Protein backbone atom coordinates (compact mmCIF):
# COMPACT_ATOMS: atom_id res chain seq x y z
CA UNK A 1 0.00 0.00 0.00
CA UNK A 2 1.20 3.48 0.51
CA UNK A 3 4.48 3.07 2.25
CA UNK A 4 6.08 6.38 3.08
CA UNK A 5 9.00 7.17 0.85
CA UNK A 6 12.41 6.86 2.47
CA UNK A 7 14.19 10.17 2.40
CA UNK A 8 17.40 10.28 0.49
CA UNK A 9 20.54 10.81 2.44
CA UNK A 10 23.90 9.25 2.04
CA UNK A 11 25.13 9.25 5.59
CA UNK A 12 28.38 7.44 6.24
CA UNK A 13 28.38 4.27 8.25
CA UNK A 14 29.06 4.92 11.89
CA UNK A 15 31.68 3.19 13.91
CA UNK A 16 30.38 0.25 15.99
CA UNK A 17 30.81 2.18 19.23
CA UNK A 18 28.57 5.04 18.16
CA UNK A 19 26.01 2.57 16.82
CA UNK A 20 25.73 1.01 20.27
CA UNK A 21 25.50 4.44 21.85
CA UNK A 22 22.82 5.46 19.40
CA UNK A 23 20.86 2.29 20.14
CA UNK A 24 20.95 2.97 23.84
CA UNK A 25 19.36 6.33 23.21
CA UNK A 26 16.55 4.68 21.29
CA UNK A 27 14.59 2.40 23.62
CA UNK A 28 11.57 2.49 21.29
CA UNK A 29 13.67 0.96 18.52
CA UNK A 30 14.85 -1.86 20.79
CA UNK A 31 11.31 -2.53 22.06
CA UNK A 32 9.99 -2.82 18.52
CA UNK A 33 12.87 -5.04 17.42
CA UNK A 34 11.99 -7.22 20.41
CA UNK A 35 8.33 -7.38 19.37
CA UNK A 36 9.18 -8.37 15.81
CA UNK A 37 11.71 -10.93 17.06
CA UNK A 38 9.05 -12.42 19.33
CA UNK A 39 6.63 -12.77 16.41
CA UNK A 40 9.37 -14.27 14.25
CA UNK A 41 10.19 -16.78 16.98
CA UNK A 42 6.51 -17.69 17.25
CA UNK A 43 6.34 -18.23 13.51
CA UNK A 44 9.32 -20.56 13.70
CA UNK A 45 8.18 -22.65 16.67
CA UNK A 46 4.45 -22.80 15.94
CA UNK A 47 4.70 -26.09 14.00
CA UNK A 48 6.07 -27.69 17.17
CA UNK A 49 3.38 -26.31 19.48
CA UNK A 50 0.27 -28.35 20.32
CA UNK A 51 -1.99 -26.01 18.36
CA UNK A 52 -3.83 -27.06 15.23
CA UNK A 53 -5.46 -24.36 13.11
CA UNK A 54 -7.60 -26.81 11.14
CA UNK A 55 -9.25 -28.96 13.83
CA UNK A 56 -13.00 -28.42 13.65
CA UNK A 57 -15.14 -28.77 16.73
CA UNK A 58 -18.75 -28.12 15.72
CA UNK A 59 -19.93 -28.58 19.30
CA UNK A 60 -17.85 -25.65 20.45
CA UNK A 61 -18.69 -23.02 17.85
CA UNK A 62 -18.50 -19.26 18.43
CA UNK A 63 -17.40 -19.68 22.07
CA UNK A 64 -16.23 -16.53 23.79
CA UNK A 65 -12.63 -16.40 25.07
CA UNK A 66 -12.22 -18.57 28.17
CA UNK A 67 -9.50 -20.32 30.17
CA UNK A 68 -9.65 -23.29 27.81
CA UNK A 69 -9.75 -21.21 24.65
CA UNK A 70 -8.04 -17.89 25.46
CA UNK A 71 -9.03 -16.33 22.11
CA UNK A 72 -12.40 -18.10 21.73
CA UNK A 73 -13.51 -20.25 18.79
CA UNK A 74 -14.77 -19.38 15.31
CA UNK A 75 -17.92 -20.30 13.41
CA UNK A 76 -16.85 -23.91 12.85
CA UNK A 77 -15.29 -24.34 16.27
CA UNK A 78 -11.65 -23.85 15.33
CA UNK A 79 -9.36 -22.31 17.91
CA UNK A 80 -8.82 -18.62 17.20
CA UNK A 81 -5.58 -18.77 19.21
CA UNK A 82 -4.18 -21.60 17.09
CA UNK A 83 -5.16 -19.83 13.87
CA UNK A 84 -3.74 -16.52 15.03
CA UNK A 85 -0.43 -18.21 15.89
CA UNK A 86 -0.25 -19.95 12.52
CA UNK A 87 -1.22 -16.73 10.75
CA UNK A 88 2.02 -15.20 12.00
CA UNK A 89 3.89 -17.44 9.59
CA UNK A 90 1.86 -16.29 6.59
CA UNK A 91 2.06 -12.59 7.38
CA UNK A 92 5.77 -12.56 8.17
CA UNK A 93 6.51 -14.85 5.24
CA UNK A 94 4.64 -12.66 2.77
CA UNK A 95 6.17 -9.50 4.24
CA UNK A 96 9.69 -10.89 4.05
CA UNK A 97 9.30 -12.27 0.53
CA UNK A 98 7.77 -9.04 -0.76
CA UNK A 99 10.46 -6.91 0.89
CA UNK A 100 13.16 -9.12 -0.65
CA UNK A 101 11.64 -9.14 -4.14
CA UNK A 102 10.89 -5.41 -4.07
CA UNK A 103 14.43 -4.65 -2.93
CA UNK A 104 15.99 -6.86 -5.59
CA UNK A 105 13.87 -5.49 -8.43
CA UNK A 106 13.75 -1.89 -7.22
CA UNK A 107 17.49 -1.68 -6.56
CA UNK A 108 18.33 -3.20 -9.96
CA UNK A 109 16.00 -0.83 -11.80
CA UNK A 110 17.10 2.16 -9.73
CA UNK A 111 20.82 1.47 -10.28
CA UNK A 112 20.40 1.03 -14.02
CA UNK A 113 18.06 4.00 -14.46
CA UNK A 114 20.27 6.28 -12.37
CA UNK A 115 23.54 5.32 -13.99
CA UNK A 116 22.68 4.62 -17.60
CA UNK A 117 21.09 7.69 -19.11
CA UNK A 118 19.65 5.84 -22.11
CA UNK A 119 17.65 3.51 -19.86
CA UNK A 120 16.47 6.22 -17.50
CA UNK A 121 13.63 7.59 -19.63
CA UNK A 122 12.16 4.20 -20.47
CA UNK A 123 12.47 2.59 -17.04
CA UNK A 124 11.14 5.56 -15.12
CA UNK A 125 8.15 6.02 -17.46
CA UNK A 126 7.24 2.38 -16.84
CA UNK A 127 7.64 3.00 -13.10
CA UNK A 128 5.36 6.08 -13.39
CA UNK A 129 2.76 3.94 -15.10
CA UNK A 130 2.89 1.27 -12.38
CA UNK A 131 2.57 3.99 -9.74
CA UNK A 132 -0.49 5.40 -11.48
CA UNK A 133 -2.43 2.17 -10.86
CA UNK A 134 -3.64 1.98 -7.24
CA UNK A 135 -1.70 -0.76 -5.40
CA UNK A 136 -4.76 -2.62 -4.15
CA UNK A 137 -6.32 -2.61 -7.60
CA UNK A 138 -3.17 -3.88 -9.28
CA UNK A 139 -2.73 -6.63 -6.71
CA UNK A 140 -6.31 -7.94 -6.74
CA UNK A 141 -6.41 -7.81 -10.52
CA UNK A 142 -3.23 -9.91 -10.77
CA UNK A 143 -4.31 -12.41 -8.13
CA UNK A 144 -7.88 -12.75 -9.40
CA UNK A 145 -6.83 -13.22 -13.00
CA UNK A 146 -3.79 -15.43 -12.59
CA UNK A 147 -4.91 -17.41 -9.57
CA UNK A 148 -4.01 -17.27 -5.89
CA UNK A 149 -0.76 -19.13 -5.48
CA UNK A 150 1.90 -18.00 -2.99
CA UNK A 151 4.19 -16.79 -5.80
CA UNK A 152 1.44 -14.81 -7.52
CA UNK A 153 0.47 -13.15 -4.24
CA UNK A 154 4.04 -12.12 -3.48
CA UNK A 155 4.59 -10.80 -7.01
CA UNK A 156 1.23 -9.01 -7.03
CA UNK A 157 1.99 -7.25 -3.74
CA UNK A 158 5.56 -6.42 -4.80
CA UNK A 159 4.67 -4.88 -8.17
CA UNK A 160 3.16 -1.63 -6.85
CA UNK A 161 5.98 -1.22 -4.29
CA UNK A 162 8.83 -1.54 -6.78
CA UNK A 163 8.60 1.99 -8.30
CA UNK A 164 9.06 3.70 -4.96
CA UNK A 165 12.14 1.62 -4.20
CA UNK A 166 13.50 2.28 -7.70
CA UNK A 167 12.98 6.02 -7.29
CA UNK A 168 14.72 6.04 -3.92
CA UNK A 169 17.75 4.26 -5.37
CA UNK A 170 17.80 6.30 -8.57
CA UNK A 171 17.76 9.56 -6.62
CA UNK A 172 20.83 8.39 -4.69
CA UNK A 173 22.66 7.20 -7.79
CA UNK A 174 22.10 10.52 -9.56
CA UNK A 175 23.95 12.26 -6.70
CA UNK A 176 26.67 9.62 -6.38
CA UNK A 177 27.58 9.32 -10.04
CA UNK A 178 28.90 12.89 -9.97
CA UNK A 179 31.16 12.24 -6.97
CA UNK A 180 34.93 11.90 -7.29
CA UNK A 181 35.27 8.29 -6.13
CA UNK A 182 32.79 7.05 -8.72
CA UNK A 183 34.48 9.11 -11.40
CA UNK A 184 37.84 7.71 -10.31
CA UNK A 185 36.52 4.16 -10.54
CA UNK A 186 35.20 4.87 -14.03
CA UNK A 187 38.49 6.38 -15.19
CA UNK A 188 40.41 3.42 -13.78
CA UNK A 189 38.40 1.31 -16.19
CA UNK A 190 36.15 -0.33 -13.63
CA UNK A 191 33.51 -2.55 -15.12
CA UNK A 192 29.90 -1.34 -15.00
CA UNK A 193 28.89 -4.11 -12.61
CA UNK A 194 31.84 -3.34 -10.31
CA UNK A 195 31.03 0.35 -10.21
CA UNK A 196 27.35 -0.21 -9.55
CA UNK A 197 27.64 -3.00 -7.01
CA UNK A 198 30.95 -2.25 -5.27
CA UNK A 199 31.01 1.53 -5.32
CA UNK A 200 27.48 2.85 -5.61
CA UNK A 201 25.30 0.21 -3.94
CA UNK A 202 26.89 0.44 -0.46
CA UNK A 203 26.20 4.16 -0.35
CA UNK A 204 22.49 3.79 -1.05
CA UNK A 205 22.11 0.86 1.35
CA UNK A 206 20.73 3.04 4.18
CA UNK A 207 17.70 4.46 2.38
CA UNK A 208 17.11 1.07 0.75
CA UNK A 209 17.00 -0.60 4.16
CA UNK A 210 14.53 1.98 5.46
CA UNK A 211 12.34 1.67 2.38
CA UNK A 212 12.45 -2.14 2.59
CA UNK A 213 11.20 -1.92 6.19
CA UNK A 214 8.22 0.18 5.11
CA UNK A 215 7.53 -2.24 2.24
CA UNK A 216 7.64 -5.14 4.71
CA UNK A 217 4.91 -3.49 6.79
CA UNK A 218 2.83 -2.36 3.82
CA UNK A 219 2.98 -5.86 2.30
CA UNK A 220 1.45 -7.45 5.39
CA UNK A 221 -1.39 -4.93 5.30
CA UNK A 222 -1.97 -5.51 1.60
CA UNK A 223 -1.97 -9.28 2.09
CA UNK A 224 -4.64 -8.90 4.77
CA UNK A 225 -6.69 -6.61 2.52
CA UNK A 226 -6.43 -9.07 -0.40
CA UNK A 227 -7.61 -11.97 1.75
CA UNK A 228 -10.31 -9.76 3.19
CA UNK A 229 -11.63 -9.00 -0.30
CA UNK A 230 -11.49 -12.68 -1.21
CA UNK A 231 -8.59 -12.35 -3.63
CA UNK A 232 -5.74 -13.41 -1.38
CA UNK A 233 -4.45 -16.52 0.31
CA UNK A 234 -6.77 -19.50 -0.40
CA UNK A 235 -9.62 -19.45 2.13
CA UNK A 236 -8.60 -22.68 3.88
CA UNK A 237 -5.25 -21.21 4.93
CA UNK A 238 -5.16 -19.69 8.41
CA UNK A 239 -3.98 -16.21 7.45
CA UNK A 240 -4.95 -13.17 9.48
CA UNK A 241 -6.71 -11.67 6.48
CA UNK A 242 -8.82 -14.79 5.97
CA UNK A 243 -9.69 -14.94 9.67
CA UNK A 244 -10.82 -11.32 9.59
CA UNK A 245 -12.82 -11.90 6.42
CA UNK A 246 -14.62 -14.81 8.09
CA UNK A 247 -15.01 -12.93 11.36
CA UNK A 248 -16.63 -10.06 9.54
CA UNK A 249 -19.91 -12.01 9.23
CA UNK A 250 -19.98 -12.69 12.97
CA UNK A 251 -18.87 -9.25 14.08
CA UNK A 252 -21.89 -8.59 16.27
CA UNK A 253 -22.10 -11.99 17.99
CA UNK A 254 -18.46 -13.10 18.03
CA UNK A 255 -16.16 -10.09 17.62
CA UNK A 256 -13.14 -12.05 18.90
CA UNK A 257 -12.75 -13.87 15.58
CA UNK A 258 -11.87 -10.56 13.96
CA UNK A 259 -10.37 -8.77 16.93
CA UNK A 260 -7.44 -11.07 17.77
CA UNK A 261 -5.89 -11.31 14.30
CA UNK A 262 -6.53 -7.58 13.92
CA UNK A 263 -4.62 -6.86 17.11
CA UNK A 264 -1.77 -9.18 16.12
CA UNK A 265 -1.49 -7.60 12.67
CA UNK A 266 -1.64 -4.07 14.04
CA UNK A 267 1.04 -4.65 16.67
CA UNK A 268 3.39 -6.35 14.22
CA UNK A 269 2.94 -3.76 11.46
CA UNK A 270 3.18 -0.91 13.96
CA UNK A 271 6.44 -2.30 15.34
CA UNK A 272 7.94 -2.66 11.89
CA UNK A 273 6.88 0.84 10.85
CA UNK A 274 8.40 2.28 14.03
CA UNK A 275 11.63 0.38 13.29
CA UNK A 276 11.59 1.99 9.85
CA UNK A 277 11.10 5.48 11.30
CA UNK A 278 13.82 4.97 13.88
CA UNK A 279 16.23 3.57 11.30
CA UNK A 280 15.57 6.58 9.09
CA UNK A 281 16.27 8.96 11.95
CA UNK A 282 19.45 7.10 12.88
CA UNK A 283 20.77 6.93 9.32
CA UNK A 284 19.73 10.47 8.50
CA UNK A 285 20.08 12.72 11.56
CA UNK A 286 19.13 15.73 9.42
CA UNK A 287 15.52 14.60 9.06
CA UNK A 288 15.21 13.40 12.64
CA UNK A 289 14.99 16.58 14.70
Amino acid at each position, binding site marked *: *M*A*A*PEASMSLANADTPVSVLAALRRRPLFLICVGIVAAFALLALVVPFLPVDPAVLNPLRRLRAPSMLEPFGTDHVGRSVLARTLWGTQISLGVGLAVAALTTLAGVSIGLLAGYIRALDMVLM*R*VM*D*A*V*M*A*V*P*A*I*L*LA*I*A*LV*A*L*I*GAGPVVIVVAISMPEIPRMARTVRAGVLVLRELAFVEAATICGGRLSTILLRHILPSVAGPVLVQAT*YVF*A*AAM*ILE*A*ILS*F*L*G*AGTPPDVASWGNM*MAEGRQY*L*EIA*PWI*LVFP*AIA*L*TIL*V*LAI*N*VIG*DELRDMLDPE*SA*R
Partner: protein
Amino acid sequence: MLGYVAVRLLSAIPVLGIVAVFVFFLLTMIPGDPAQVIAGDFASPEQVQQIRAALQLDRPLAERFVAWALRLASGDFGKSLFSGIPVAQLVGQRIEPTLMLATMTVCIAVAIAVPLGLVAAYKPGGWVARASMTVAVLGFSLPVFIVAYLLVYPFALGLRWFPVQGYVPLSQGLWACLHSLTLPALALSLLYIALIARVTRAAVLEVLREDYVRTAHAKGLAERRVLVRHVLRNAAVPVVTVVGIGFAALLGGVVVTETIFSIPGLGRLTADSILRRDYPVVQALILLFSTVYVVVNLGVDLIYAAIDPRIRY
Protein backbone atom coordinates in the same frame (compact mmCIF):
# COMPACT_ATOMS: atom_id res chain seq x y z
CA MET B 1 1.86 28.68 -18.82
CA LEU B 2 -0.20 27.26 -21.68
CA GLY B 3 2.95 25.80 -23.19
CA TYR B 4 3.74 24.12 -19.90
CA VAL B 5 0.25 22.65 -19.66
CA ALA B 6 0.63 21.28 -23.17
CA VAL B 7 4.00 19.71 -22.36
CA ARG B 8 2.64 18.13 -19.19
CA LEU B 9 -0.41 16.81 -21.00
CA LEU B 10 1.82 15.28 -23.63
CA SER B 11 4.08 13.68 -21.02
CA ALA B 12 1.03 12.05 -19.42
CA ILE B 13 0.27 10.24 -22.66
CA PRO B 14 3.15 7.73 -22.57
CA VAL B 15 2.33 6.89 -18.93
CA LEU B 16 -1.30 6.21 -19.75
CA GLY B 17 -0.21 4.39 -22.89
CA ILE B 18 1.91 2.02 -20.81
CA VAL B 19 -1.00 1.49 -18.41
CA ALA B 20 -3.23 0.69 -21.38
CA VAL B 21 -0.74 -1.83 -22.76
CA PHE B 22 -0.43 -3.38 -19.32
CA VAL B 23 -4.21 -3.55 -18.89
CA PHE B 24 -4.53 -5.20 -22.26
CA PHE B 25 -1.88 -7.80 -21.58
CA LEU B 26 -3.35 -8.67 -18.17
CA LEU B 27 -5.69 -10.87 -20.17
CA THR B 28 -2.84 -12.75 -21.79
CA MET B 29 -1.35 -13.47 -18.36
CA ILE B 30 -4.28 -15.71 -17.51
CA PRO B 31 -2.94 -19.25 -17.62
CA GLY B 32 -4.75 -21.61 -19.97
CA ASP B 33 -7.73 -20.55 -22.06
CA PRO B 34 -8.85 -17.08 -20.90
CA ALA B 35 -12.36 -17.60 -22.23
CA GLN B 36 -12.71 -20.78 -20.17
CA VAL B 37 -11.27 -19.14 -17.07
CA ILE B 38 -13.48 -16.07 -17.40
CA ALA B 39 -16.58 -18.15 -18.02
CA GLY B 40 -15.95 -20.12 -14.83
CA ASP B 41 -16.26 -23.80 -14.00
CA PHE B 42 -19.98 -24.11 -14.67
CA ALA B 43 -20.13 -22.48 -18.08
CA SER B 44 -21.53 -24.28 -21.08
CA PRO B 45 -19.34 -24.60 -24.19
CA GLU B 46 -21.61 -22.05 -25.91
CA GLN B 47 -20.96 -19.48 -23.19
CA VAL B 48 -17.23 -20.04 -23.50
CA GLN B 49 -17.51 -19.61 -27.26
CA GLN B 50 -19.51 -16.42 -26.73
CA ILE B 51 -16.83 -14.92 -24.50
CA ARG B 52 -14.15 -15.98 -26.93
CA ALA B 53 -16.01 -14.16 -29.69
CA ALA B 54 -16.70 -11.10 -27.53
CA LEU B 55 -13.02 -10.76 -26.67
CA GLN B 56 -11.97 -11.81 -30.18
CA LEU B 57 -9.58 -14.29 -28.66
CA ASP B 58 -9.34 -16.19 -31.92
CA ARG B 59 -7.59 -13.23 -33.58
CA PRO B 60 -3.82 -12.68 -33.42
CA LEU B 61 -2.60 -10.72 -30.41
CA ALA B 62 -1.25 -7.68 -32.27
CA GLU B 63 -4.39 -7.33 -34.32
CA ARG B 64 -6.52 -7.54 -31.19
CA PHE B 65 -4.47 -4.88 -29.46
CA VAL B 66 -4.74 -2.43 -32.35
CA ALA B 67 -8.48 -3.00 -32.67
CA TRP B 68 -8.92 -2.57 -28.93
CA ALA B 69 -6.86 0.61 -28.79
CA LEU B 70 -8.79 2.09 -31.71
CA ARG B 71 -12.12 1.32 -30.10
CA LEU B 72 -10.86 2.78 -26.84
CA ALA B 73 -9.81 5.95 -28.63
CA SER B 74 -13.31 6.33 -29.99
CA GLY B 75 -14.74 5.97 -26.49
CA ASP B 76 -16.03 2.42 -26.90
CA PHE B 77 -15.11 0.38 -23.83
CA GLY B 78 -17.05 -2.72 -24.84
CA LYS B 79 -19.80 -4.48 -22.93
CA SER B 80 -19.81 -6.12 -19.54
CA LEU B 81 -19.44 -9.91 -19.85
CA PHE B 82 -21.58 -10.28 -16.77
CA SER B 83 -24.58 -8.09 -17.51
CA GLY B 84 -24.20 -7.18 -21.17
CA ILE B 85 -24.56 -3.49 -20.32
CA PRO B 86 -22.09 -1.18 -22.12
CA VAL B 87 -19.13 -0.53 -19.82
CA ALA B 88 -19.36 3.24 -20.21
CA GLN B 89 -22.95 3.19 -19.00
CA LEU B 90 -22.14 0.85 -16.11
CA VAL B 91 -19.28 3.05 -14.99
CA GLY B 92 -21.33 6.22 -15.43
CA GLN B 93 -23.99 4.96 -13.03
CA ARG B 94 -21.38 4.37 -10.34
CA ILE B 95 -19.44 7.61 -10.46
CA GLU B 96 -21.50 9.72 -8.07
CA PRO B 97 -20.96 7.79 -4.80
CA THR B 98 -17.23 7.47 -5.42
CA LEU B 99 -16.85 11.11 -6.35
CA MET B 100 -18.69 12.16 -3.19
CA LEU B 101 -16.68 9.76 -1.02
CA ALA B 102 -13.32 10.82 -2.48
CA THR B 103 -14.12 14.53 -2.21
CA MET B 104 -15.30 14.19 1.37
CA THR B 105 -12.23 12.14 2.28
CA VAL B 106 -9.81 14.66 0.80
CA CYS B 107 -11.59 17.52 2.60
CA ILE B 108 -11.54 15.71 5.96
CA ALA B 109 -7.93 14.64 5.53
CA VAL B 110 -6.63 18.09 4.60
CA ALA B 111 -8.72 19.80 7.28
CA ILE B 112 -7.32 17.53 9.98
CA ALA B 113 -3.81 16.77 8.75
CA VAL B 114 -2.55 20.24 7.84
CA PRO B 115 -3.28 21.88 11.23
CA LEU B 116 -1.99 18.73 12.95
CA GLY B 117 1.29 18.81 11.04
CA LEU B 118 1.62 22.56 11.50
CA VAL B 119 1.20 22.44 15.28
CA ALA B 120 3.40 19.32 15.53
CA ALA B 121 6.24 21.23 13.89
CA TYR B 122 5.56 24.46 15.75
CA LYS B 123 5.54 22.90 19.21
CA PRO B 124 7.81 19.85 18.75
CA GLY B 125 7.62 18.49 22.30
CA GLY B 126 3.94 19.18 22.87
CA TRP B 127 1.08 16.75 23.15
CA VAL B 128 -0.26 17.69 19.74
CA ALA B 129 3.08 16.77 18.21
CA ARG B 130 3.07 13.42 19.94
CA ALA B 131 -0.58 12.74 19.15
CA SER B 132 -0.16 13.63 15.50
CA MET B 133 2.91 11.47 15.05
CA THR B 134 1.06 8.61 16.74
CA VAL B 135 -1.82 9.12 14.32
CA ALA B 136 0.70 9.14 11.48
CA VAL B 137 2.31 5.83 12.40
CA LEU B 138 -1.10 4.29 13.16
CA GLY B 139 -2.36 5.43 9.78
CA PHE B 140 0.37 3.45 8.09
CA SER B 141 -0.16 0.44 10.35
CA LEU B 142 -3.91 -0.12 10.33
CA PRO B 143 -5.58 -1.69 7.30
CA VAL B 144 -8.52 0.43 6.20
CA PHE B 145 -11.04 -2.28 7.06
CA ILE B 146 -9.88 -2.42 10.67
CA VAL B 147 -10.22 1.36 10.91
CA ALA B 148 -13.70 0.95 9.46
CA TYR B 149 -14.73 -1.53 12.15
CA LEU B 150 -13.18 0.60 14.88
CA LEU B 151 -15.53 3.37 13.72
CA VAL B 152 -18.58 1.20 12.98
CA TYR B 153 -18.56 -0.49 16.37
CA PRO B 154 -19.02 2.57 18.57
CA PHE B 155 -20.65 5.07 16.19
CA ALA B 156 -22.99 2.86 14.17
CA LEU B 157 -23.66 -0.23 16.28
CA GLY B 158 -23.33 1.46 19.68
CA LEU B 159 -24.46 5.07 19.50
CA ARG B 160 -26.36 4.58 16.23
CA TRP B 161 -25.36 8.04 15.01
CA PHE B 162 -24.56 6.75 11.54
CA PRO B 163 -25.78 3.87 9.39
CA VAL B 164 -23.68 0.68 9.48
CA GLN B 165 -23.64 0.60 5.70
CA GLY B 166 -25.39 1.88 2.60
CA TYR B 167 -25.40 5.05 0.59
CA VAL B 168 -28.00 7.81 0.28
CA PRO B 169 -27.80 9.33 -3.22
CA LEU B 170 -27.25 13.01 -3.68
CA SER B 171 -30.75 13.38 -5.14
CA GLN B 172 -32.15 12.78 -1.64
CA GLY B 173 -30.37 15.79 -0.26
CA LEU B 174 -26.75 16.77 0.27
CA TRP B 175 -26.94 16.45 4.04
CA ALA B 176 -28.37 12.92 3.98
CA CYS B 177 -25.74 11.91 1.45
CA LEU B 178 -22.85 13.30 3.50
CA HIS B 179 -24.30 11.73 6.65
CA SER B 180 -24.33 8.29 5.02
CA LEU B 181 -20.70 8.75 3.92
CA THR B 182 -19.31 10.06 7.21
CA LEU B 183 -17.91 6.77 8.56
CA PRO B 184 -16.53 5.53 5.23
CA ALA B 185 -14.86 8.89 4.60
CA LEU B 186 -13.36 8.95 8.11
CA ALA B 187 -12.06 5.39 7.73
CA LEU B 188 -10.58 6.16 4.35
CA SER B 189 -9.02 9.41 5.48
CA LEU B 190 -6.79 7.98 8.23
CA LEU B 191 -4.03 6.80 5.89
CA TYR B 192 -4.30 10.05 3.99
CA ILE B 193 -4.13 12.07 7.21
CA ALA B 194 -0.99 10.17 8.16
CA LEU B 195 0.66 10.90 4.81
CA ILE B 196 -0.25 14.59 4.77
CA ALA B 197 0.48 15.28 8.45
CA ARG B 198 3.93 13.71 8.15
CA VAL B 199 4.87 15.81 5.12
CA THR B 200 3.31 18.99 6.54
CA ARG B 201 5.35 18.61 9.70
CA ALA B 202 8.60 18.07 7.80
CA ALA B 203 7.92 20.97 5.43
CA VAL B 204 6.97 23.37 8.22
CA LEU B 205 10.06 22.41 10.24
CA GLU B 206 12.13 23.29 7.20
CA VAL B 207 10.47 26.68 6.68
CA LEU B 208 10.54 27.64 10.37
CA ARG B 209 14.34 27.87 10.16
CA GLU B 210 14.24 30.37 7.32
CA ASP B 211 15.42 33.92 7.78
CA TYR B 212 12.20 35.45 6.52
CA VAL B 213 10.29 33.79 9.35
CA ARG B 214 12.61 35.42 11.85
CA THR B 215 12.14 38.73 10.01
CA ALA B 216 8.39 38.36 10.16
CA HIS B 217 8.59 37.76 13.89
CA ALA B 218 11.03 40.63 14.34
CA LYS B 219 8.80 43.13 12.67
CA GLY B 220 6.14 42.26 15.22
CA LEU B 221 3.64 40.29 13.16
CA ALA B 222 1.08 38.32 15.11
CA GLU B 223 2.04 34.69 15.63
CA ARG B 224 -0.99 33.40 13.75
CA ARG B 225 -0.27 35.64 10.78
CA VAL B 226 3.34 34.48 10.60
CA LEU B 227 2.25 30.85 10.67
CA VAL B 228 -0.45 31.15 8.05
CA ARG B 229 0.96 33.77 5.69
CA HIS B 230 4.66 33.07 5.89
CA VAL B 231 5.15 29.51 7.09
CA LEU B 232 2.20 27.57 5.74
CA ARG B 233 2.25 29.23 2.36
CA ASN B 234 5.92 28.42 1.86
CA ALA B 235 5.47 24.86 3.12
CA ALA B 236 2.52 24.30 0.82
CA VAL B 237 4.31 22.88 -2.22
CA PRO B 238 5.36 19.53 -0.68
CA VAL B 239 1.99 19.31 1.09
CA VAL B 240 0.06 19.73 -2.15
CA THR B 241 2.41 17.24 -3.82
CA VAL B 242 1.67 14.54 -1.27
CA VAL B 243 -2.07 15.18 -1.58
CA GLY B 244 -1.64 14.33 -5.26
CA ILE B 245 0.58 11.29 -4.75
CA GLY B 246 -1.64 10.01 -1.95
CA PHE B 247 -4.55 10.01 -4.36
CA ALA B 248 -3.47 6.57 -5.62
CA ALA B 249 -3.76 5.18 -2.10
CA LEU B 250 -7.13 6.88 -1.77
CA LEU B 251 -8.46 5.30 -4.95
CA GLY B 252 -7.21 1.90 -3.81
CA GLY B 253 -8.81 2.44 -0.41
CA VAL B 254 -12.09 3.22 -2.15
CA VAL B 255 -12.23 -0.39 -3.38
CA VAL B 256 -12.05 -1.72 0.18
CA THR B 257 -14.17 0.97 1.84
CA GLU B 258 -17.03 0.72 -0.63
CA THR B 259 -17.06 -3.05 -0.23
CA ILE B 260 -17.25 -2.85 3.58
CA PHE B 261 -19.89 -0.13 3.64
CA SER B 262 -21.89 -1.46 0.66
CA ILE B 263 -21.56 1.75 -1.29
CA PRO B 264 -22.57 1.24 -4.93
CA GLY B 265 -19.62 3.14 -6.38
CA LEU B 266 -16.70 2.49 -8.70
CA GLY B 267 -14.67 0.76 -6.00
CA ARG B 268 -17.41 -1.77 -5.32
CA LEU B 269 -17.84 -2.26 -9.04
CA THR B 270 -14.10 -2.88 -9.34
CA ALA B 271 -13.99 -5.48 -6.58
CA ASP B 272 -17.10 -7.23 -7.92
CA SER B 273 -15.91 -7.15 -11.53
CA ILE B 274 -12.48 -8.52 -10.67
CA LEU B 275 -13.97 -11.38 -8.69
CA ARG B 276 -16.46 -12.06 -11.51
CA ARG B 277 -13.64 -11.78 -14.06
CA ASP B 278 -15.71 -9.23 -15.94
CA TYR B 279 -12.72 -8.36 -17.99
CA PRO B 280 -13.85 -5.34 -20.10
CA VAL B 281 -15.12 -3.61 -16.95
CA VAL B 282 -11.85 -4.24 -15.09
CA GLN B 283 -9.86 -2.86 -18.02
CA ALA B 284 -11.96 0.29 -18.18
CA LEU B 285 -11.82 0.82 -14.41
CA ILE B 286 -8.06 0.42 -14.12
CA LEU B 287 -7.63 2.86 -16.99
CA LEU B 288 -10.11 5.27 -15.42
CA PHE B 289 -8.45 5.17 -11.98
CA SER B 290 -5.01 5.67 -13.52
CA THR B 291 -6.24 8.57 -15.65
CA VAL B 292 -7.78 10.22 -12.60
CA TYR B 293 -4.49 9.81 -10.74
CA VAL B 294 -2.47 11.29 -13.60
CA VAL B 295 -4.92 14.18 -14.07
CA VAL B 296 -4.98 14.95 -10.33
CA ASN B 297 -1.21 15.11 -10.30
CA LEU B 298 -1.21 17.30 -13.37
CA GLY B 299 -3.58 19.61 -11.51
CA VAL B 300 -1.21 19.57 -8.55
CA ASP B 301 1.62 20.75 -10.79
CA LEU B 302 -0.48 23.64 -11.97
CA ILE B 303 -1.47 24.59 -8.41
CA TYR B 304 2.24 25.09 -7.62
CA ALA B 305 2.26 28.31 -9.62
CA ALA B 306 -0.73 29.62 -7.70
CA ILE B 307 0.88 28.89 -4.32
CA ASP B 308 4.40 29.93 -5.10
CA PRO B 309 4.78 32.93 -7.41
CA ARG B 310 8.47 32.04 -7.89
CA ILE B 311 7.40 29.01 -9.91
CA ARG B 312 6.92 30.09 -13.50
CA TYR B 313 6.27 27.75 -16.35
